[in-house]
């Protein structure tokens, strides 16, 4: 026990050191970019300019500026000042809602369909070309089509999440089901277990870890895609938040958004990793 404790402590300390080094490097980079202040400017003229132009400030913020911005968002996450200005908590909630809805719908379709495909080599062969063709399409390529046919930007975003989440789950489910050990199926057959019972009591538990891996890949992709989709259609969500900060050329705002996107993505991944542990088994 003490060795694992030591191990964790060491890794944790190392993480902190890396973080500090990174922050220090960042700070020095910004300081190095500081240009000379403009001299001999007419004060009336200078009053109309920003600090970047008058004092030679870098466009990049220093770490403590981002920290202050982060704290500001965390301290008031749920304000609502109109349709174009909402707190970070509300924006994240919009994005999470879209991701979970799209992902949930995709799971409802992909898992049963993947099951069927995995059980029947014929269906697998028949559907394979379509899956292979559609799988590599960038989800955002669906966006114009979705906007045009669905005629609602929020639903379009959900559709895009749906279409990008479905492939990893479908393929992993089919793979997991097709690769259940033959011995187990044979044992079930010998015991004259009904096909339905075999599916639920033998195949599903056996394929569950693979299915969960598919889900984990899917939710990662979905979270990547929602940011891009929301940047495109705007309105609400963390992607819109990034775009709005970018519109103001506020790198500080964009960096804080990156931190939040990373944290939520990590949280989603941890959640599914825990779910995967629940269904894991040792052979």
């Amino acid at each position, binding site marked *: 026990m003490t060795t694992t404790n030591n191990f964790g402590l060491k890794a944790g300390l190392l993480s902190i050191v890396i973080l500090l080094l990174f922050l220090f490097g960042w700070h020095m980079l910004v300081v190095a970019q500081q240009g000379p202040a*403009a001299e001999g*400017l*007419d004060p*009336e*003229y200078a*009053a*109309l*300019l*920003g600090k*970047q*132009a*008058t004092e030679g400030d870098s*466009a990049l913020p220093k770490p403590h500026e981002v920290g202050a911005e982060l704290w500001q968002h965390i301290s008031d996450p749920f304000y609502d*000042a*109109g*349709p*174009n*200005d909402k707190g970070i908590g509300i924006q994240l909630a919009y994005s999470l809602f879209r991701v979970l809805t799209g992902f949930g719908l995709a799971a409802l379709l992909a898992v049963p369909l993947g099951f069927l495909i995995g059980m029947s080599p014929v269906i697998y062969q028949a559907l394979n070309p379509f899956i292979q063709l559609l799988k590599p399409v960038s989800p955002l390529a669906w966006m*114009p089509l979705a*906007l*045009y046919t669905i*005629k*609602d*930007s929020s639903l379009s975003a959900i559709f895009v999440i749906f279409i990008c989440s479905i492939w990893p789950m479908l393929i992993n489910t089919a793979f997991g089901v097709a690769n259940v050990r033959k011995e187990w199926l044979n044992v079930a057959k010998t015991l004259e277990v009904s096909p339905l019972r075999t599916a639920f009591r033998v195949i599903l538990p056996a394929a569950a870890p693979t299915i969960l891996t598919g889900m984990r890949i899917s939710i990662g992709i979905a979270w990547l895609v929602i940011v891009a989709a929301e*940047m*495109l*259609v*705007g*309105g609400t969500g963390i992607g819109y938040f990034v*775009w*709005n*900060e*970018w*519109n*103001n*050329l506020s790198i500080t705002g964009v960096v804080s958004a990156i931190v939040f996107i990373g944290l939520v993505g990590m949280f989603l991944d941890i959640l599914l990793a825990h779910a995967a542990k629940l269904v894991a088994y040792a052979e």
Partner: protein
Amino acid sequence: MGALSNPFDPNEILWTGCPCGMHATMYEHQLAMSQSATGSRFYTSETTGAETVEQSVQQQQAAHSDMRDEPEIANTDPDVDWNDQEAVLARCVESAVMKGIFGTDMNRRKFLRGVGSATALAAVSQFVPLDALKAAIIDAKGPLEKTKLNVGFVPITCATPIIMAKPLGFYERYGLDVEVIKTAGWAVSRDKSLSGEYDAAHMLTPMPLAITVGAGSTSVPWTMPAVENINGQAITLANKHLDKQDPTKWKGFTFGVPFEYSMHNFLLRYYVAEAGLDPDKDIQIRVVPPPEMVANLSAGNLDGYLSPDPFNQRAVFDGVGFIYKLTKEIWDGHPCCAFAASQKFIDETPNTFLALFKSILDATAYSQDLSNRPEISEAISPKNYLNQPTTVVQQVLTGRFADGLGKVRNEPTRIDFDPFPYHSFSVWILSQMKRWGYIEGDINFKDISEQVYLATDAQAVMKEMGQTPPDITYKSHTIMGKTFDPAEPDAYIDSFAIKRT
């Protein structure tokens, strides 16, 4: 008598119809009264003192001041001033409600005498939302089909009237509950408008034409009731091109414009072509979303751009570029952005459209006044709208700005606001779309212009609002010293050396 009498006063005669409800008209009623020996003359004398219907009608039509002078009909409520439209309308609503409840004047007066006016008012208000009714009718001459609207905008100063109408309450004034929704770019704005998510939207003046003729999208009949802004754009160059302030030296430059179907694209093409450069061969024109223009300029991906403000001023503010030329120096008074709506929206909800149209016209007139611009800058700079430093927005709107070359310039018409959608604007835009090959074949410039640009409607509505629209919808324009005659667009296109046709 008539609409202005207090309907809660039992001594008033409200309706010119028969007060006992037994006769179709007052005339028949009076005839019946006079014929019957026992008939009381009470109503007749109380009514107006007039013997015949003709007379009473004449009195109705007579100027209202006369009505007040006549002692017999001095029952017009002194609380209501004829010149106050809202009060008059409010009174009409009350009267109409009372008429609806009691049917005949006799019933109404009996009821009022019985319970007292105050009680009656309270009782009636309980069941009929008088205040809401009054508000609804004052706001539009017909009931609004819907009051909750979504209007899209792209966060640039061109959209000033559309945006500021929200924080400064112009939409509310016309009974509308409008959400102004920030949109990432014009392609999205167009798609959301086509899909019906937006009831109306901020667009570029060429877009409704392009949508109607089906250039770059499906063909849907679109309209442009009003221009948002005139002037207000600029050519910004990167600081490294300080020595190249001459378009003949721009060969090989890469320029950004915000959208293909934009005045920015057409003005930039016009400008470089006049200097002898072919915009398709000698320079590269890229479509770049406005916020990305400044970053691309500082990264060296763009040598310059002709873009909407505040991004020209923002380049100066951030010290990455300078304002080389304001578009008003290319064509003073050119249209830029538009308030656009689908024909469907106008057909299905005409009263709502009219209220929205009026609030935009009202907001545009307010924006026109230079003295209001600092207030407007404050109102539209926050995160909810433009999300820009107020100093930047204020420099654009007031026209007192740093040009990036060390000078403070004073150009009060750097951006201006004039809603009138001249048909000749549209003909010019179509001529440029044809010149550069965006539309091919013969087009009927006049028909499309008059279908899409609602200049005649704008004239009528502006007059009704007490504004002074021009009498003509076509006029000739001067662009860089060259005159454009809207009657001869084809000859105009032919007169250019550099073109795609």
